[in-house]
Each structure stands twice: as structure tokens, then as C-alpha cells.
């Protein structure tokens, strides 16, 4: 029995480590900041993901060709954005979206190269957690049952050949 539980503990530890690594990966690559944080910062090297709403009436240029300028609203500040990149389908006024690009601290301008949808990690995470946990629990309970049954059969000496009538 100890071996059995040790093996399953190993499985759980591996799953936990992988879950941790995955969530860290998402934190690192896919977490977004608000426009307020970008405006106050001076960092112009790193690629940022900024989530905000396109300010009503501020959109100029041709989003269909991939050139546009607009303001992105945060909680208190707004951010001037210059977009140059592939034609974004999601870019329209009053739309909340994520922009990927660099902050130009001298010109107070955010240079975006890409857009992305606002992500709903809750749905993805809950779907995977429900599915994986349920499967693991199902397999675990079955395996434990089998182990118990083997033990019981061994202890009750049921292997012995049947007696004649």
C-alpha cells in the first residue's frame, strides 16, 4: 500500500509543479498592465501588454490598413497610442482590448504592433482543472480499489483450490 500511495503522491507533485510552471508562464508572458502604469513609467525597452478601452472619438487613421492613432483609457490616465502593424479586426471605439508594443517615454507615445483579445483565464483554467482533477480522482479511486481487492483476496486465502463436494 505504501508504494501505491507514494506513486500517486509523485503524480500529484508532478501535476502541481506543471500547474505552477504554467501559471508562471502566463504571468510572465500574458499578464497585462493598465495604461496608468505605463504613463508613469520610463521603461522603453521591454515589450508591454496594455489593457484598456479605446477612447470614444479619439480613433484616427485607417485601422483597415494597419495604421491608426487613438487614446487608450485607463482608470485615471489615458495613453496616446500609435498603432502600426497587421490590420486589427478588434480595433474600434469603446472596445476594451490588449495592445502589445513599447512605450516611448520621450514622446509620451505608446507604439503598438499587435492587438489581442481580453483574456478569460478563469474559463480556461476551470475547464482544465475540472477535467484533469476529475480524471485523476477517477483513476486514483479505481486503482486504490484494485489494490484493496487484491489484498483482501490474499488475506482471505481465496486463492486456495475449492474443496470437493
Amino acid at each position, binding site marked *: 500500500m505504501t508504494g501505491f500511495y507514494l506513486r500517486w503522491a509523485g503524480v500529484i507533485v508532478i501535476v502541481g509543479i506543471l500547474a505552477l510552471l504554467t501559471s508562471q508562464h502566463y504571468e510572465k508572458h500574458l499578464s497585462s498592465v493598465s495604461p496608468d502604469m505605463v504613463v508613469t513609467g520610463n521603461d522603453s525597452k521591454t515589450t508591454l501588454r496594455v489593457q484598456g478601452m479605446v477612447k470614444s472619438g479619439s480613433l484616427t487613421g485607417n485601422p483597415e490598413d494597419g495604421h491608426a492613432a487613438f487614446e487608450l483609457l485607463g482608470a485615471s490616465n489615458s495613453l496616446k497610442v500609435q498603432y502600426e502593424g497587421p490590420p486589427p479586426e478588434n480595433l474600434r471605439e469603446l472596445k476594451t482590448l490588449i495592445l502589445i508594443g513599447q512605450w516611448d517615454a520621450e514622446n509620451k507615445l505608446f507604439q503598438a504592433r499587435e492587438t489581442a483579445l481580453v483574456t478569460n483565464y478563469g474559463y480556461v483554467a476551470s*475547464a482544465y482543472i475540472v477535467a484533469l482533477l476529475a480524471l485523476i480522482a477517477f483513476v486514483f479511486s479505481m486503482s486504490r480499489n484494485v489494490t484493496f481487492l487484491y489484498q483482501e483476496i490474499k488475506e482471505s486465502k481465496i486463492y486456495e483450490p475449492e474443496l470437493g463436494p
Partner: protein
Amino acid sequence: MMNRFIRRIQRFKGWIGAAAALCIFYGLYLGLLDSPPDYYQGEVVRIMYVHVPLAHTALLAYGTLFVGSLWYLWKRDVLVDNMCHAAAGITAAFTILALITGAIWAKPTWNTWWTWDPKLVSFAVLLLIASGYLMLRTFVEDPDKEGRYAAVMAIVGGIDLPIIYFSAEWWRTLHQPLSISMRGVSMSGDILLPLAIMSLGLNLLFIYMLMIRTQMLYLTNLLEAKKGRLLSHAHLSHTSS
């Protein structure tokens, strides 16, 4: 007394389980980290990599139940009957999970937890059929009758499933044509590879689960039969002395 078949199963079980775990972990890596987000659905599309393989595996499990039932009616092998029983339980589990992940996926994409889509209707009915099968098995006393009746139920259900799907599809197109489509989910290589790996992993996992569950049911029956026989034996020797 132990069936040879079970011993043969024992030998490969660990390898299949390990292969399933490897495939699932690789599939999770591909689905969660490596594949790009969808243009329209964004990150939510990643639910597909667990939902669709779950649904496929549920169908594979019911297929196993169907073929196993035919095989049982032909050969009347108790172990095959146990395998059918095991496959039915696993079908129910995978179907529930497919429905739950489907609902979680439907909420952000279609803005509703449930819709009367033909696939959803068929899976709900599949769940009802599988649970009806499991209920039926608990209500029959005679083990021989249990196997036969359950096999009949599984075969009728298996023949009915495609008809259910088609009738639900016609019904759907009649009442709400084309309200739901897989808009923007193009079946490119980025999507197909994680889907295939996850499907393979879950199919292997199904085989692994089928082995364990068959073993579990077989041992339960064996233990019960032996205990009953020991009891009746004790009873006999007691009354004769």
C-alpha cells in the same frame, strides 16, 4: 483460478498508463503554452484542446461498450461482460466531463452555458443512456441475466445514437439555422497537433482506465462469488455435522 487474460493485462498496464500520462502532459504543453491564441476567441480556444478529445474518448468508450456487448452475446465470456460494465462507467464519466467543459467553453464564446446544439443534445442523451445502462445493471439479481440485458440495452442504444444525432441536427436547422458555427476556428496544423496528441493521450488513458476498472469489477465479482461459496460451504458442513 485467476483468469489468464487479467495476468496478460497486468503486464502492459503500467506502460500504457505511462504513455497516456506522457501524451497528456505533452498535449497540455502544446495546448496551453505552445499553440497560438485564436483570432476571434482569444485564449478561450484552448478549452477546445481538452473538450474535443474528451468528447471523442467518450464516443470511443461507448463504441467499446457496443462492440463488447456484441462480443459478450456471441462468446458469453464473463470477463467481456465486466469490460462492458467498466466501459459504461467510463463512458458516463467522459460524457459528463465533455458536457461540463463544453458548457465552460460555450459561456465565453456563445454567451450561454447551454444551447440545443445537436452535438450537445446527443451527448446529453448519451449520458442518459449510459446511466440507464448502469442503473439497469444494479437492478438485476442473476449475473447471467444482468450481462444479457445490459448487452441488449447497449446495442439498442448504440444503434439509436446516430439516429438521435441526425434527428437533433435536422430539428436544430429547422428552428434556428446557423446561429452557431465554429467561426474563425480554422483547422490548421497549430490546432490539429495539440488536438491529436491530447486525443491520443486520452484514448490511451481510456484503455488504461478500462483495464483497471475491468480488473476492479472482475475482482469484486470473484470475491463475492468466493465469499458466497465459502459461506454456503460453511453452512453445508455445519448442517451436515
